[in-house]
């Protein structure tokens, strides 16, 4: 019986992956929010038409282990709740607990945060609660109880996401475009400028005056676009920064301003449309993952500069949009691409 190309993939993947899941969403997603071990949220990111905002139950195979996993044959996502939004979704965060759970949905082209409620148990439609208007031109990022809005420009505003009241403001040392921000602890946050690679750590204690800068550091990597990840945020936090020239630099925030590692990865330059994304493993602090260079997701050990794994499961002519390590299973990563694919892959790195 002849083996065709699609079957060749079957054989080559057998030993490469411990497990592999491949899904097709109706619209591509630029964000994957892990809510609990059994639930994730994604949102379509198209700029025309309606986009789906989905709150999904993860397949049993992803949630369970051992005998329980074997008995649960489901490898499919179940749509617990969904909604249609006229805006593309660039980022989702979750807040609240139990019945009061809320999705905070952001579109970077607008300065608003949409609040969607997961509370209604009688319907599988996510209801829109409110829109947090910030009055600033663009950009909005959010973490837990804190929203930072107007991430482009010299000033950013802080909002309490429970009361939607402004609680402070940040004056950046110079105009920056936030490439995201990560909490190091309850009050300290780190961010990197998307266009200059400038790294900033700031103490955002609210109610005690404006947040103060803890660290401000020029980028030593060359490039026009940057992405970053924080490694081990709670113990000896480090910032890893990747530039579009393929340079990866790792800094220890607390120790000194000198880079721990700086390596040229020799990657081909990403296209204008591709999304640079850098993530760190919560289980193995030496491992980071990179996407945006070609259609693959790379896993590296930054301390030894060794490439550990290359995931090439997305179509070659699709643009990778986002990826994230699955917090509840070691060596498992979710990745999404512009053709609507959402993959979860588990290999040994």
């Amino acid at each position, binding site marked *: *019986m*002849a*083996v*065709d190309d*699609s*079957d060749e*993939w*079957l*054989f080559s*993947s*057998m030993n490469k992956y411990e*497990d*592999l*899941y*491949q*899904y*097709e*969403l*109706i619209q591509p997603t630029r964000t994957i929010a892990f809510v609990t071990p059994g639930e994730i949220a994604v949102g379509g990111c*198209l*700029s*025309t*038409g*309606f986009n*789906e905002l989905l709150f*999904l139950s993860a*397949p049993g195979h992803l949630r369970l282990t051992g*005998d329980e996993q*074997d*008995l*649960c*044959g*489901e*490898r*499919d*996502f*179940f*749509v617990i*709740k*969904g*909604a*249609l939004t006229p805006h593309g979704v660039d980022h989702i965060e979750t807040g609240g607990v139990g019945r009061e759970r809320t999705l905070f949905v952001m579109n970077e082209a607008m300065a608003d945060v949409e609040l969607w409620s997961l509370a209604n148990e*009688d*319907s*599988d*439609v996510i209801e829109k609660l409110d829109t947090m208007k910030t009055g600033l031109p663009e950009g909005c990022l959010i973490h837990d109880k804190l929203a930072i809005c107007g991430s482009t420009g010299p000033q950013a505003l802080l909002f309490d996401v429970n009361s939607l009241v402004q609680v402070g403001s940040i004056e950046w040392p110079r105009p920056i475009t936030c490439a995201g921000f990560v909490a190091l602890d309850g009050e300290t946050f780190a961010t990197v400028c998307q266009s200059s690679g400038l790294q900033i750590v700031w103490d955002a204690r609210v109610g005690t005056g404006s947040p103060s800068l803890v660290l401000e550091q020029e980028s030593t990597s060359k490039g026009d676009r940057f992405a970053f990840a924080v490694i081990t945020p709670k113990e000896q936090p480090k910032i890893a920064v990747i530039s579009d020239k393929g340079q990866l630099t790792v800094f220890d925030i607390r120790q000194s301003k000198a880079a721990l590692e700086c390596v040229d990865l020799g990657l081909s330059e990403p296209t204008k449309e591709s999304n640079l994304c850098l993530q760190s493993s919560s289980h193995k602090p030496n491992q980071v993952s990179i996407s945006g260079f070609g259609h693959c997701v790379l896993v590296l050990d930054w301390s030894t500069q060794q490439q550990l794994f290359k995931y090439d499961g997305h*179509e070659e*002519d*699709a*643009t990778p949009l986002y990826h994230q390590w699955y917090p509840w299973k070691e060596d498992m990563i979710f990745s999404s691409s*512009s*053709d*609507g694919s959402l993959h979860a892959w588990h290999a040994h790195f």
Partner: protein
Amino acid sequence: MPEIRVVPLGAGQDVGRSCILLTIGGKNIMLDCGMHMGFNDERRFPDFSYVTKEGPLTEYIDCVIISHFHLDHCGALPYMSELVGYDGPIYMTQPTKAICPILLEDYRKITVEKKGETNFFTSEQIKLCMKKVVTVNLHQVVRVDDEMEIKAYYAGHVLGAAMFQIRVGQDSVVYTGDYNMTPDRHLGAAWIDQCRPDLLITESTYATTIRDSKRCRERDFLKKVHSCVEKGGKVLIPVFALGRAQELCILLEMYWERMNLKVPIYFTLGLTEKANHYYQLFITWTSQNIKKTFTDRNMFEFKHIKPFDKSYADNPGAMVVFATPGMLHAGQSLQIFRKWAPSENNMVILPGYCVTGTIGHKILNGAKKLEFENKQMVDVKLSVQYMSFSAHADAKGIMQLISQCQPKNVMLVHGEDEKMDFLKQKVQKEFGIECYKPANGETIIIRTEHNVPVPISRTFLKREESNALGWERGCNEARGGEWSTRCERCHSSWCASGRGFRESWICSRLPCCTWLNQCWKWALESITVARCRMDSELIGSCFRFWTAGSKAAKALSRCAAHDKEQWMESRVA
């Protein structure tokens, strides 16, 4: 005002005993006549007293249509036709007619001879029922009477499964039965033309599901089977004789050949011999790949899969056995299971749904000890795996089918989820049409509009329409399948029908029109985002334009305004 009435007697917010009563243009049609595998009492059959309290159904039902041979779609047919009484025509495809009586007889044997039930249909009644069957071919218009005609479309799912369009006068309904929008190894994907029915009745088994890809599920299956036999264990795969069994056989055969494995694979005799015979007989109903290679190699003649003898179950060493029936509720599969269950090295893989009360259902719920007749206890130490290989459309597939046939209304049946508000909302927003999900016994009434056809020249129509509407920039709203627009540069106006692209209407002298022309061609050819060289958002918009009526016409208008220059520059380059 003309109307269409639909009432599910089964499969309304449920899976099982599919039976939908349809009244269209004064005609009454029964769509499927299935039984519910989860009940042993009167609830296993649809409640036919809804049609008439007593007496036969013949004068109340104009015809019965059966979509495919699964018992939850045809299992009540002999009961309805011979015990309740019906003498009218029963329409189904050739493979369904050939295979139905086999499954009905098999089910009758288990129910009557093994479980001792009375008041059940007999073998003779199955034969009498099948005499009323009229077969239909795919895409053949069959006149049921002077007013009603039906047409079958390929549904995938299982051999011979079909979706049916029922037309009475200007009203039409499409009933999908069970279908699959992605091709299998042994069956193709469902397909229907843009028939624009007043109502699409679609299954919704996986409507709230995003399915893992077929190749990842196959990979998982092969990995588990291989790891078990590699350690010397035995793998039991309980299957129904027809359906997924053939798919898994082709998969294992391919894998064994490629990996040069010598571990024996067996298939229990009886029903399965006939099953493979029917797949060869109805080869035109199988997938492109199977049809293409059939002259060189018959994919249903297996090199590595041999007939099973019950004495083999005691042989030492690894083996894989496909055995019927699929839920371990009787027969060879249960016998083999009892022998192999106490060994930790062995494995049982259940590839489908198991009804409550069956051994399959018990072990899937973690049962470690089972009691059989004469109080015999069996320890369940073997590895129990459940893998779903059933071929149904998921949420994306349902939306694809709706965009293919472009109905005016949608009805969801054959789905257990009561909460389908989100899917309803999606259908309404994406297609601008109503979506219903009735429960059993709930009547849905859909008013239809009838047009009076008036012959008129296209030139006059275009002129009058442009005068009446006033030309605007970009695309106007779709009206009755015709889109009209005006070129911004040359101001020439043109119309295109959703059914075909009439190039003669296009001003092809200027690049801007040619660009719109090209856009239409891409949409008609359904070029996917991945393959198109254009900006993905643009083609996303074009595709949505094609599939989503007036709303997407506005999307094309937007992309026309923004991206036309880009395309023209790339052409020049």
